[in-house]
């Protein structure tokens, strides 16, 4: 049986700020099957980032369970979580998520390097994937010399290069103009349809939502609606 990349059961996260308890997520139940292309939306403060952080193991839930590929991660220690992130999850953040002193190609190679992949294989894969995201010829540029859209493409290339079971993206288009955002979404969509990569991303942008197969709306830390598009 094919395991679902993501299963959340009664997932809750409460932040403690002094005396005040802030419930950021409340009893979230969620299943994302393989090859899904899911968009998280909702007003600011509704818990999108919190949910993504929990699923990626960057943060620990207050209660509830998370399964990645059938493996419980909610009680794991930091070092095992790092391992899970390294092999199972690709990341695209809102901004500033490349290592500034490394070139585009080296940034893409970074994750493979951590995985201990041979340098020749690494370079070949990295160049191939950069070509696929439309950055051929820019391999030697550092992030500072790339536009915001180009940087996000490098980040996507880095996220997909080691074929993770899940790619998480927190508002990947927030800092881009609508034209660039569109072409980026087209890229993500093609990655999803061609490579069957499971995608979960958050956004405020109506246009961006329209690219997804499934739209989940969060409100005050709860799932308000979950519809197939």
């Amino acid at each position, binding site marked *: 049986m094919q395991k679902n990349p993501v299963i959340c059961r009664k997932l809750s996260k409460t932040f403690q700020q002094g005396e005040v308890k802030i419930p950021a997520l409340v009893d979230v139940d969620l299943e994302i099957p393989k090859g899904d292309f899911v968009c998280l939306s909702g007003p600011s403060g509704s818990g999108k980032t919190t949910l993504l*952080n929990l699923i990626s193991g960057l943060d620990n839930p207050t209660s509830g369970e998370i399964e990645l590929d059938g493996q419980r991660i909610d009680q794991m220690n*930091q*070092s095992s979580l*790092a391992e899970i992130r390294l092999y199972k*999850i690709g990341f695209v953040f809102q901004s500033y998520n490349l290592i500034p*002193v490394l070139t585009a190609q080296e940034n893409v190679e*970074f994750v493979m390097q951590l995985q201990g992949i041979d340098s020749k294989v690494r370079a070949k894969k990295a160049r191939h994937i950069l070509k696929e995201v439309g950055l051929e010829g820019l391999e030697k540029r550092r992030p500072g010399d790339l536009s915001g859209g180009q940087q996000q493409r490098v980040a996507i290339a880095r996220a997909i290069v080691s074929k993770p079971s899940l790619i998480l993206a927190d508002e990947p288009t927030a800092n881009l103009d609508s034209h660039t955002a569109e072409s980026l979404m087209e890229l993500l969509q093609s990655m999803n349809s061609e490579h069957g990569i499971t995608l979960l991303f958050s956004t405020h942008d109506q246009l961006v939502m329209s690219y997804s197969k499934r739209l989940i709306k969060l409100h005050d830390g709860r799932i308000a609606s979950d519809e197939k598009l």
Partner: protein
Amino acid sequence: MILRLAWRNLWRHSRRSWLTIGAIAFATLLLIFMITLQLGSYDMMINNNLQLFTGHFQVQAPGYLKKPQMRNTLAQPQQLAAQIRAINGVEDIGIRAKGFALIASEQRTYGAEVVGVETANETKLSTIPSLIKTGRFLSDDNAQELIIGEVLARNLKVTVGDELTLLGSGHDGSIAAAVLPIVGIFKSGEPGLDRNLIEMPLKSFQEIFSMHDKAHIIVGIVENLDNLETILTQIRSTLLTDKQVVLDWDTLVPGLMQLIEADFINSWFLYICLVLIVTFSILNTFLMAVLERTREFGVMLALGAKPFLIAKLVILESLLLTLLGLAIGMIIGISIVLYFYIHGFSYPGMEELGAEFGITGKVTPELSLLAISLGPLVILAFTMLASIYPALRIRLLKPVDAMKSV
């Protein structure tokens, strides 16, 4: 890869990195310069002091050092002296006899130490013959004459050409008495010698004090002080009977080594202060470099890097920075030391002072591996300590929090 990352990170803030490298380099070259010079000064201090009169080592009868009695002599010193002279590494050897006597001029009487010396050998063993202020040194071993320290001469109100009456007890218990003319007055700068010492030819001394050919001390100097221990061991094991002991300079002049040790501790205090100041400024740089990159480290953690890897990266960056500073500091420091090794270094104002006491006035820095590497090693140790703190902070970093800070 991690090395490449570290190397490039260094040049993100090239001005800051160069400042840090500069601080490390400066501290390094300062330490190299000061330590080599200091050790060189000690060598000079030891040599100047010892070559004045004491020599590097002495052979005496057992117990003579503690209680210099007339009767406690070395038998057949000439023969032993010749044997010691034949040893490799021994530069010069001389025989002395020593007694205490009352010295009377026309106006006053003082007690003084009278030493009979081999006039030819003494010139090579001791700098006193070259420090005669008025008159001349003793002419030959049979001459009936003496030289006298400057302060003693002043106290006795005598000058060159005046006669002194010596009154002491001879080797056989008889009374030793003589009237001898002063042919020279020396000024060594060492109060003990200038106030107390009278030298006369050995043969005359032996005659006056009824010693025949016996003596009290064989004085020696070696070519290289570093080999002193081996030479003394050789003398001890092959030449000496239980009627003779050989003593090194540290035993003969115990104050000298203590003086040096005290000075050494003083200057180490200074060095550590210097290193600490540099260390704290470096710690500051390291810490800043880490804190301002919290978000970047967060990204790396999120991608699946272990905190250990990032700590390694940070330590590697500090190490590279330190090594660069050390390399530059050592190159410049060693060049400076080499220059002074060849040309000699004179402390300001020391030249005149030195000349008066027959000291060359120039210090040669010590060019040994220890002297050169000591400073850099201490700096390396301290900067590595300084890099551990920022590295440890990374271990406390949680990816979510790290990602939040921009």
